[in-house]
């Protein structure tokens, strides 16, 4: 296999996974790597399960990641972490936002939310990191900045220049939200001991 990094960003429609993937792709591009990103729009955005895939390296062909090939899964929600777990490669890292959002079949009682999602994942993957993204975002000043907190966490796991991340965030978010987002990024970055 060629030397590629595969990152799966999973969550629930409306959580900001697409913005996160675009920032990551922007960083990688600035560093001079080839990159491809795959997103799904439309119906899925109405609160459905959403996955965006980022692949980078010297030369990238397919924009999508096969099961068992993701180096990192960044999960915005616990159940989604479990749903996409089979995409993680051996010794890959899974980074989970400790948040529970009930899908409609759970709300209506047709299905049950797995009680021990994180425990189940930890049993499978030694490299599991759990973070209270919402709490950190609120501390940073805006509950909506969860996605940037998670980006900060992801950034910590990738061997890419930190300043480039800050530059791309600066280019991506509106000026009035910049302070909150930079704080949110730092919170995510510093959450790794």
């Amino acid at each position: 296999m060629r030397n590629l990094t595969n990152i799966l960003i999973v969550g629930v429609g409306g959580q900001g996974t697409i913005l996160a993937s675009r920032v990551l792709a922007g960083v990688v591009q600035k560093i001079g790597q080839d990159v491809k990103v795959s997103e799904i729009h439309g119906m899925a955005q109405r609160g459905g399960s959403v996955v965006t895939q980022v692949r980078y390296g010297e030369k990238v062909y397919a924009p999508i990641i096969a099961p068992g090939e993701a180096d990192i899964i960044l999960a915005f929600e616990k159940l989604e972490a479990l749903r996409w777990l089979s995409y993680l490669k051996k010794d890959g890292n899974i980074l989970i936002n400790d948040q529970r959002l009930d899908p409609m079949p759970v709300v209506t009682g047709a299905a049950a939310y797995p009680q021990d999602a994180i425990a189940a994942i930890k049993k499978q993957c030694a490299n599991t990191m759990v973070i209270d993204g919402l709490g950190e975002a609120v501390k940073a000043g805006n509950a909506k900045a969860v996605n940037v907190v998670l980006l900060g966490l992801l950034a910590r796991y990738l061997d890419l220049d930190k300043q480039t991340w800050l530059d791309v965030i600066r280019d991506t978010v509106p000026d009035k939200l910049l302070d909150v987002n930079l704080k949110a990024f730092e919170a995510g970055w510093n959450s790794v001991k």
Partner: protein
Amino acid sequence: MKKLLTGNEAIARGAWEAGVVVCTAYPGTPSTEITENAAKYPEMYAEWSPNEKVALEVGLGAAIAGGRALVSMKHVGVNVAADPLFTLAYTGINGGLVLVSADDPGMHSSQDEQDNRHYGRAAKIPVLEPADSQEAKEFTKLAFDLSEAFDTPVMLRTTTRVAHSQSLVELADRKEVPIKEYEKNTAKFVMIPANARPRHLIVEDRMQKLSTYAETTELNRIEWNDPSIGIITSGITYQYVKEVLPQASILKLGMSFPLPKNLISEFAQKVTTLYVIEELDPFFEDQIKAWGIAVQGKDTFPLFGELLPEMISAKLAPSDQQTCCHATACELKTEDTPPRPPVLCPGCPHRAVFYTLNKLKVTVTGDIGCYTLGCLAPLNAIDTTICMGASIGTAIGMEKARGKDYARKMVAVIGDSTFIHSGITPLIDAVYNKATTTTLILDNRITAMTGHQHNPVTGFTIKGEPTKEIDLAVLAQAVGVDRVRTVDPFALSELEQIIREELAAEEPSVIITRRSCALIEKGTKPPYTVSEEACTGCLQCMRLGCPCIVKQDNKKVSINPAQCVGCGLCATVCKFDAIRKEGGANA
């Protein structure tokens, strides 16, 4: 300069670089962002047309007048535009005309999975298929050159994975293409039978020339490697093949129709085993087999869904196949992870309508839009969904088959944009042919499903300029509906009363339920909360299917304050006054 662009952004850029002057479309996933991005370039006129047929007619008008025009739609949109398309192949164009068909293998956001390469063959126009964003841009430009060189419309066919994937694109400047002279030419542009017959000969002659062109164009290229395995492929599948079979020899077809017979034969002769790897239908395979060339294809790969890289490696490179390292987790996946289907947003105005229709236990013929989600539990309020604009016609048919009494227990629902798209003609049919059906126009003031595009009822164009706003009530009256009423769907008892009255009426009626989409309503109101003491656990509120309302372990409900937008609908349906505005008494 290189920029990271989606396939759709790249097509818009390609049109701009190619000197296009007119871009038209009806929004539809995965094509929407093409025209959205095209509208950002001041040099190009852009419009949301009422439907795809009109989009193509405006585009062909621009082309006949001598300008380059780009027309975009999703695969099912081409069904709507097919009528002018087939004849346009006869007349040919003047300025270049490119029709983008964005297909959706896997049906990420569509009602069917049709393979629109067939349209190219049926209409006898060339089809180009880009494999990434760079090609999406380059092929768009090339398609315009080809269109003018061969005097034909050209189809640029993408799929969701190309349309919605981002990859790096080398940008270029715009080349201003002068508007060509327009000269009256009735033999070419007026398709009465006497003129159309000789034009058909021209079409067949053009197909011959295009076939010759296909043999030598750079769009089709052989990448020689190990000759023991040869693969013919196109579009995104090419990328997958490069990924999982780097050692294979590949014939990449950038032009999917017409196919280069000689090039394919030559490739077939030089490889030991020949595969066609294509998504959806055996479009290449059937033609290649018809030429007497032995090839493997759909005996190895599926006819439906996306063709994923792991499927190719499983069949052709099993030793390379990565086995899932989390086998237990995979089992967990099937048993313990409930699906997460899309839902109507918190505060969505459609929720009130479907709640009421469910309560009234009526048959509902549905249509295409966010409101299609009203078919899901717990609302369960839609019986049929076929295509854009089908709801009213379906209701008429049901009434004609089962009688007027049945129409007393049946409504058609259709959105504002969809009504304009193709709801007006069946409404005319209802009036003309004496149906008594009740139609609900769910007017949420925007084209919501595809991401909030303007349409003729919003009062704004794609470039954000104010324009005349169509009055749906006046429009319905103008075609002869005497009973037209408008109601705020959140006024639940009034809505129910009006539906009952109009169902009872033995003549066609239109009820316009008007309230803005929750996502464009400015400024969210404070969330609602549930009083523990007052809540009896009757779960009536849960029938709304609002994702913020959750049943607790003690059988009572609670509201997730982070998601609730304070629309108040749940408070209206609670008989026990248990749901209140946060920090206050009930509204």
